[in-house]
């Protein structure tokens, strides 16, 4: 029995003339994901991409990995048969044994794109349905709401048989929407924000601020681990670790306590922007969610945004914490995010941060810092790490 994976691309199918470009990016992403599992061939046809492995390739693992490739709406493991209807009758029951045993109702659905095939769709449904009922007498047919749908696709060169399509990761292929830099602290929100933008086709780089000795090696390790989880979807991520101790100490010494956080965030944006433009990024991404903490009120975001010259994407802006948490559980970052290591955002936090900061006050306070020199030194001290 030859098994293949059939990929249904989602939104991509709606693209016009540049659909092929999107498809090529997605195939490249899939190829990279499966590269260590053996040789796979990818054949696009209509809105489906057929993925075929050499003998002995680990299809199970391949399916698992493909479930995290953006741009795929759905996929199925399918039995590939020569164009002989007797083979369909003979092999379907055996191939789908487990699913058929576990279901109590089913229907057969036929798609015949090769109109020259001697059996038409109703005929295929009828004959295969009868055969499966013979083989599995516990089953009944339910065409309206079946537990299991057995699909037979008659294509130009082969016939495919599969049951119950799996949901793909959706979205757009990573790399199709350009590149942006994710500002990541180690909390719950930023990895989710990165994941959401990757889902819209953004290729991610990441920027993390470290303040030793106020933050530990473990805090940075945590960021590596979090990005490792995001990279399972987004592919390889280049992480820049920016030394931020000097900056934070300067802000603490020279600026009013209640403006500490807001100024720190503006400085982070300045540094991030510099690094982002060096690495070819067109935007910054943050995990801000409106009103979540003092630095994420409308007023505070306005102040932070003023420091930015490139667009700042805030995909979580309208989401509740529990909605964010449920995504972080889904992408498996939650358990890492809640490890209790102090990160750069919690160093020197003021007791009563200003929730309605006035921009002139902020700019006045900032003028006491030698911003250019501090940014220069922070950016110069940046380390790069590749996360796979």
């Amino acid at each position: 029995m030859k098994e293949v994976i059939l990929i249904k691309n989602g939104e991509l199918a709606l693209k016009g003339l540049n659909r092929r470009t999107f498809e090529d990016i997605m195939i490249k992403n899939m190829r990279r994901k499966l590269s260590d599992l053996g040789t796979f061939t990818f054949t696009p046809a209509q809105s489906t991409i057929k993925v075929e492995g050499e003998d002995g390739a680990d299809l199970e693992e391949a399916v698992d990995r493909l479930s995290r490739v953006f741009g795929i709406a759905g996929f199925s493991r399918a039995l590939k048969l020569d164009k002989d209807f007797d083979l369909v009758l003979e092999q379907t029951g055996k191939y789908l044994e487990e699913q058929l045993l576990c279901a109590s109702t089913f229907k057969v659905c036929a798609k015949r794109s090769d109109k020259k095939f001697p059996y038409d769709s109703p005929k295929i449904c009828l004959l295969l349905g009868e055969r499966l009922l013979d083989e599995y007498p516990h089953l009944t047919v339910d065409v309206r709401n079946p537990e299991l749908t057995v699909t037979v696709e008659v294509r130009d060169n082969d016939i495919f048989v599969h049951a119950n399509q799996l949901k793909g990761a959706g979205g757009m292929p990573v790399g199709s929407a350009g590149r942006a830099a994710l500002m990541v602290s180690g909390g719950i929100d930023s990895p989710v924000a990165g994941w959401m933008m990757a889902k819209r086709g953004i290729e991610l780089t990441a920027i993390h601020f470290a303040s030793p000795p106020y933050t530990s090696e473990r805090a940075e390790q945590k960021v590596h681990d979090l990005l490792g989880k995001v990279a399972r979807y987004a592919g390889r991520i280049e992480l820049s670790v920016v030394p931020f101790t000097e900056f934070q100490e300067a802000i603490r010494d020279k600026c009013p306590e209640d403006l500490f956080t807001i100024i720190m965030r503006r400085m982070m944006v300045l540094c991030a922007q510099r690094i982002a433009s060096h690495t070819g990024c067109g935007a910054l991404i943050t995990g801000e969610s409106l009103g979540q903490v003092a630095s994420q009120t409308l007023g505070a975001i306005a102040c932070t945004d003023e420091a930015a010259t490139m667009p700042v994407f805030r995909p979580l802006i309208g989401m509740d914490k529990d909605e964010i948490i449920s995504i972080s559980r889904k992408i498996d970052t939650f358990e890492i995010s809640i490890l209790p290591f102090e990160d750069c955002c919690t160093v020197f936090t003021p007791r009563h941060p200003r929730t309605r900061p006035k921009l002139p006050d902020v700019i006045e306070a900032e003028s006491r810092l030698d911003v250019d020199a501090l940014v220069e030194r922070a950016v110069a001290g940046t380390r790069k790490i590749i996360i796979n």
Partner: protein
Amino acid sequence: MEAYLDNSATTCLCSSAKERMVEAINKYYGNPSSLHSVGTAAQRQLDAARVAVAKSLSCEAEEIVFTGSGTLANNAAVFGAAHALRRRGNRIVTTCVEHPSVSECMAQLEKEGFEVIYLKVDKCGRISKSELMQAVNSKTILVSLMYVNNEVGSIMPVETARLAVKKAGAPALIHCDAVQAYGKMLIKPSRLGVDLMSASAHKINGPKGVGFLYVRKGVRLMPYICGGNQEGKIYSGTQPMPAILGLYGAVEELPDLTAQLEKTTALRDYLVQEARKINGIVINSGDEALPYIVNLSAVGHPSQTMLNYLSDSGVYVSGGSACSKGHRSKVLTAMGIEPERIDSALRISLSRFTTREEIDMFLCALENGVNTLRKKK
């Protein structure tokens, strides 16, 4: 020359295991939970060990929980699952030939009021798929099946458990005791359809004092040991770095399992074929058994006597299993083997280091034993 053929009891340490252990003792004395660099260095090694074990099972590192032994992994799994799901049902399905580290837990759970179904085995030591399907009902909360029997090497149809649970709509978790299977056959828990799987280091040329439990992502167990919440809260206690890194070394040194299985099968076939030529030898293991374990009887010669005789000749095997010494084998009894054959049963267990010379030495000693020792009337 000696022939150590008791590898299912334990194995010698392989060289990678030794190296990693020495390194652990000298360099990684930190507590992996400590936040300073010494602790972080230990944590990194611990993570690397977890990744290596996970890779050997094609699973994720977070799905591996290190425990103090295979027995402790079995206890953590069986009690942890039963106690976590006790509100969802009362039935547990297992086999009548489990290792004591599972069957004694079951006896305890019966006292707590659980209904435990013990599946019977055929003359080869295997349970039947259809009986398994029938035994699982909608109130079943745990199915615990050993992968390979420790006395006769029979392989259980573990993959059927998932189907049985699905079909019955049971809330059950599926546990597999893979202590005798891990490192000898290719295992992928996700393909096998199990939620929990136990293994031990010292059966695969690693050290004693460490085992692990695979816990499928999303599965919640009642913590078996309470304390500092190490190992995903399932198995608290500061991780024993030398033992865990020893396991890491043993896993790194595992051979290509498919090729090794073929080699071992050839050795086993030779052993069985030659042993059958000796007067009074009967093979108790089935043909389909894992080739690393051969159970045979020198009818008329009590196991202990023959074992002593072989030991004096430098050949080391066990009677039944090392864990049930002194009792009549429950496994062979369940297989319906006659008492005189059970009383004379020997278990010869191979490892990837076993040579043809060792097998010849055993065969020669066994033949001499059969010819010189007086038969018991």
